[in-house]
């Protein structure tokens, strides 16, 4: 869609007019079963959902995804490798031309599994890495609190195995109070192992993260420091080409002094944050076939069920994605209400805003908002 002139564009409809809607990134939680009980798991995964899509249903969904032209699918969970037919799902998608990324805790990614993923045409192996050994193991705990085997060893081992097998490798880190001081050391570790990319994000306080009984979330006042660190890594990668490349996810921001740097992404393009793309470029699919604009969003955001109607019918009905199509800047609250970027940013990550405040119109986890609150930058009226 051709860009609008800025003066006429900065209103509630800026996003819908400016950002082309297309089926780009679908995140499919193929199972709720998980062999870990991570403290921050937003889905509170563990036991298998009794009503997960059957094999036949999953294959049918794969065909629908292909037919709709989704560019890429992130197969995730739970732990996706616990679902028996994960490789068939991946293969069905890649056969249809969809780029498939597998997101795993790494525990089971070894031996035959590596070969299965290769045969299925999986492009990327993304492994969760939430700190150095002690911190990672404290966060990514095993059922019953068992310490062994180390989930950190499994995660780093999986990344190395994936790298050796020729996959594109990504480490995914939820930054929090516990692992924030370890980020420089983690970068060094990833570089030593030649891991291609590092995806950095904040945890959304839902599910099990909501139950942690001590301070866990990164304090909002540390966000500028986090942004500065990320920008340094990105500049360094741009200049040297050394791994890892850095991608900052939508939960982290917004509009700090390094905004344009931290949004470059793995493809190193000029960007700035344009708000949540759930239901616009992205979609979440749960293990039992329900559809959400983004997997990080809670059940209140459900927009359909592939057992009841085709995925395309859900996607095509934009009225179901009211938080995008009927977004109203007049409802903004807190710092967001006075922000000059309000119609572009739209309160940042919607799942984060909702989980933090109960309103999609107020996101206090914001660099610019914090600066406004402290009087370092002006408010816009």
């Amino acid at each position, binding site marked *: 869609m051709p860009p609008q002139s800025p003066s006429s564009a900065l209103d509630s409809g800026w996003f819908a007019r400016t950002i082309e809607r297309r089926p780009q990134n679908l995140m499919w939680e193929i199972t709720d079963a998980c062999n870990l009980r991570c403290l921050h798991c937003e889905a509170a995964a563990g036991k298998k959902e009794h009503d997960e899509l059957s094999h036949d249903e999953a294959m049918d969904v794969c065909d629908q995804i292909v037919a709709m032209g989704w560019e890429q699918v992130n197969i995730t969970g739970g732990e996706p490798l616990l679902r028996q037919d994960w490789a068939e799902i991946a293969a069905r998608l890649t056969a249809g031309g969809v780029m498939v990324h597998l997101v795993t805790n790494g525990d089971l990614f070894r031996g035959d599994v590596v070969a299965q993923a290769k045969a299925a045409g999986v492009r990327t192996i993304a492994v969760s890495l939430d700190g150095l050994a002690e911190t990672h193991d404290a966060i990514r705990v095993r059922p019953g609190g068992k310490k062994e085997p180390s989930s950190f060893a499994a995660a780093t081992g999986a990344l190395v195995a994936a790298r050796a097998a020729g996959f594109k490798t990504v480490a995914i880190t939820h930054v929090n109070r516990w692992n924030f001081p370890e980020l420089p050391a983690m970068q060094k570790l990833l570089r030593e192992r030649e891991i291609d990319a590092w995806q950095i994000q904040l945890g959304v306080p839902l599910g099990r993260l909501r139950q942690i009984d001590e301070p866990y979330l990164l304090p909002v006042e540390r966000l500028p420091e986090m942004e500065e660190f990320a920008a340094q890594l990105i500049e360094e990668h741009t200049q040297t080409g050394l791994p890892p490349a850095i991608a900052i996810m939508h939960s982290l921001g917004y509009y*700090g002094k390094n905004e344009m740097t931290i949004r470059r992404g793995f493809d190193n393009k000029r960007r700035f944050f344009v708000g949540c793309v759930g239901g616009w470029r992205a979609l979440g699919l749960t293990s039992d076939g329900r559809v959400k604009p983004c997997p990080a969003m809670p059940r209140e955001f459900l927009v359909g069920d592939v057992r009841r109607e085709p995925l395309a019918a859900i996607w095509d009905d934009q009225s179901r994605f009211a938080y995008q199509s009927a977004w109203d800047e007049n409802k903004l609250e807190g710092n967001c209400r006075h922000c000059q970027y309000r119609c572009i940013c739209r309160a940042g990550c919607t799942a984060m805003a909702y989980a933090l405040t109960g309103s999609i119109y107020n996101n206090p986890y914001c660099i610019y908002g914090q600066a406004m609150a402290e009087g370092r930058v002006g408010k816009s009226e």
Partner: protein
Amino acid sequence: MTGYLESTVAQKIRDFLDDLDAAPPPTTSAREIEALLVSRVRARAGDPETRRLLRSLLANLAIVDPARLPAPACETVVPSALADELAALLAPPAPVSLKSKPRPTAALAAAAVLICGALAGGCQNANGKSENSPTYCSDNLTAENFDHRLRNLNKFSAAEIEGIETDFARKKGGDRETTIRRLCTLPEKDVVQFIKENFCTADVGIIHFEELIDSSADLTSTYRIAATRRFSHMRREARIHTIKNLCGKSATEIAAYVRQVVLGIPSIDSDHEPRPRHDGVDSAMRYKGVDF
């Protein structure tokens, strides 16, 4: 494990409404949720289950610990003010307000002038006529007499009196005289009510505020609810000021005032665009080589 994180008031209200099977959609803002809660409770204040859940919510609001919010700015609702309002709604129902009935201005005007001197002690020596004369009050159809009687009531603040006098001055001559005559016929206990019903600025009650903003089709019901909610928390002087700014205004003016002043929603002019803040971002917003 109870969890370290505290829920915001909006999240607690969402849980409450969920328990009543009235969960608002996730696109509802905190302000709207608050207004929905008040309206829901008002509508079902007599329902035992609602009252039980509401007591639980009130207890929950009382233990808010801001230090355990993910960030201070998470909270946009003032829990104590909301709790006060909810507690008031839980109280036994008040007698039916006269304000809920149609304003009987025409009838009152037609029924004017039967008894004089009802404003006991109100007839003072203003112009040489005997103040004790039974007809003194209704014979003296001047603004001074009106002002004099108004102030002697000792029922209105200086700001309210100023507003009422402005209203009075706006009336046509005949209407002013009718008003004074009517005032003179009423027993003191009814005078305040009469003034409230006939002088827009004299009534700073919530129902009157609702009536004023209801006249504006430019305001959605959501904004009306939210504005009424805001108004209910205003101090008396702020209410007087607000009512003054609504009385006699057009629907468009009322809508603009409510949105911008009462609700504090900034007006956006069509040429609004971001001011330069960060190198790169603002130029990027002009779409030069940006890849979305």
